[in-house]
């Protein structure tokens, strides 16, 4: 965003070169918007006509060519639930340690931070292979919702920790000093004061993590698997929405319409989630987190 005082401060000389440059920049912006609009409108136009309550609740039939995505949505939510129930406590604990319990340059904290930075860069397909090797094979969970959820938990952890830490850092230091001055124990300070004050950061982290997990495909194909039945337990294989889209478009002839409808559902979900995240971020944190 240009700072208002800076915007009009250039001399208003319009030489040919300046005009061309400005036109080029506007051209780039307009063509990107047009390209993305084409993409988004295509998804909506082809996907939304299929929308109905039945589509969202019925099980897929005929390899997904007919029926709905009911069982797929249930699997997706279960995978998400497993992912969050592991990654949220772990992430919260790590973030608290990094921001409240260790000095900025403490060696242990620095090492954890560095390793999380690396984790954030690992490609999702590698998470998938790792999950397959550790959870499916080594720990014997097989292709299951549990394996998929745990793999995703490893993947969203860095995002979760980064924004949670940011949330803690935005709590004014006076709070901590005041708490110490009144003789509150550290654990009481944490649970009664810091965590409530850091809720906006936690929420943003949570929402971003959910977004990332919902969008993920490559890490799930060979951890949670392809089975499109209604899952009966966490040890059943369950097909996530994104895997469903992939399978319909690549492996099922004539599955394009259903794939589009599922894609519209997924994009819709993510839109809502991103909307919530930027609302929270704008209001409480000044957008710092969304920038990376």
């Amino acid at each position, binding site marked *: *965003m*240009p700072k208002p005082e*800076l915007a009009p401060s*250039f*001399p208003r000389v319009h030489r040919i070169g*300046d005009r061309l*440059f*400005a036109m080029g*920049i*506007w051209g*780039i*912006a307009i063509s*990107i918007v047009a390209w*993305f609009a084409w*993409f988004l409108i295509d*998804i909506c136009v082809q996907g939304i006509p299929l929308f109905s309550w039945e589509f969202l609740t019925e099980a897929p039939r005929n390899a997904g060519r007919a029926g709905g995505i009911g069982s797929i949505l249930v699997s997706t939510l279960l995978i998400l639930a497993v992912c969050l129930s592991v990654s949220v406590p*772990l992430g919260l*604990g*790590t973030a608290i*340690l*990094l921001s409240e*319990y260790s000095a900025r340059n403490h060696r242990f*904290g620095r*090492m*954890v931070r560095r*390793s999380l930075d*690396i*984790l954030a*860069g*690992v*490609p999702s*397909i*590698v998470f*998938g*292979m*790792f999950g397959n*090797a*550790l959870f499916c094979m*080594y720990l014997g969970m097989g292709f299951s919702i549990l394996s998929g959820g745990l793999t995703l938990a490893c993947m969203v952890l860095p995002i979760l*920790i980064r924004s949670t830490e940011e949330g803690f850092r935005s709590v004014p230091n006076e709070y901590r000093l005041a708490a110490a001055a009144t003789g509150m*124990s*550290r*654990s009481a300070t*944490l649970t009664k004061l810091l965590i409530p004050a850091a809720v906006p950061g936690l929420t943003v982290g949570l929402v971003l993590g959910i*977004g990332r997990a919902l*969008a993920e*495909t*490559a890490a799930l*194909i060979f951890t949670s698997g392809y089975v499109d039945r209604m899952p009966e337990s966490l040890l059943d294989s369950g097909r996530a929405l994104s895997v469903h*889209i*992939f399978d319909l*478009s690549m492996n099922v002839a004539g599955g*394009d319409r259903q*794939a*589009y409808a599922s*894609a519209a559902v997924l*994009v819709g979900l993510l*839109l809502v989630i*991103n909307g919530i995240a930027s609302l929270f971020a704008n209001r409480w944190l000044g957008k710092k987190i*969304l920038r990376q």
Partner: protein
Amino acid sequence: MFQSRTDSILSWILRGCAMTSGAIVVLIFGFMLIESWPAIHQIGWLRFLSDSAWNPTAQEPGQFNMLPMIVASILVSIGAITLATPLGIGSAIFVQYYSPRLVGGIYRNIIELMAGVPSVVYGLWGLVVLVPIIASWHPPGPSLLAGILILAMMILPTIALMTMAAFQNVPADYIRASAALGLSRTRTILSVVLPAAKSGLFTAVLIAMGRALGETMAVLMVTGNVVQLPSKMFDPVRTLTANMAMEMAYAMDVHRSSLFVSGLLLMGTVVGLVLTAELLSRRSRHAET
């Protein structure tokens, strides 16, 4: 400082959490190494580059030439970067220095939205819309070109958003000084802002390169998946990531292990890029202060 018992228990729990989170990367590296060891041991590094083809399921001895896939991965990524970098930087310039305030805000939101779209959805669109267009122009359609176009669309937001952040770090004094000297907006951007934000731009490109190399689903869906060295833009190719995603489901023994070798190679490269980017941005931050 006074520490109650709950306090010390809590502090140990937190330490445990941090230890676990930090150990995941080590665990990943460890498992990738263990799983790829049989292939490295039995096949050896050299054969991954010198075998005559990629045919890992053939009767003894299978063939394990990964070179065409490595080349395909690199070509797709470099193509996407060359396309997305000017567009991404252009977008950032637009938001920062050309657009009216409101339009810039909306444009930024659109770019953030682009970043949030899942890669399968880009892949689906590429498969249904883009590939037929390319096919009607020059068959067969699924191709290196399709991969480059879709991937460019996916990494553009990364470059644009990171460039915007880099522009915001350019001291306002530079811009005021340039305006005071009577330089035009174009000159200011080209000769003052871009050089000042250079290291930020470089970081953005490195990060985007890492994302492009690691991207799987969209590339898998539009590139046609033929293991070959492409000779032109319209040839179908198969990238390393696509190969892993396709063959992981049924691969056994040495074949499976060789997929982990490619995973290890990929992870090493991407992590290297990310760390370099980090180092660069840290050094430039030091230089500023």
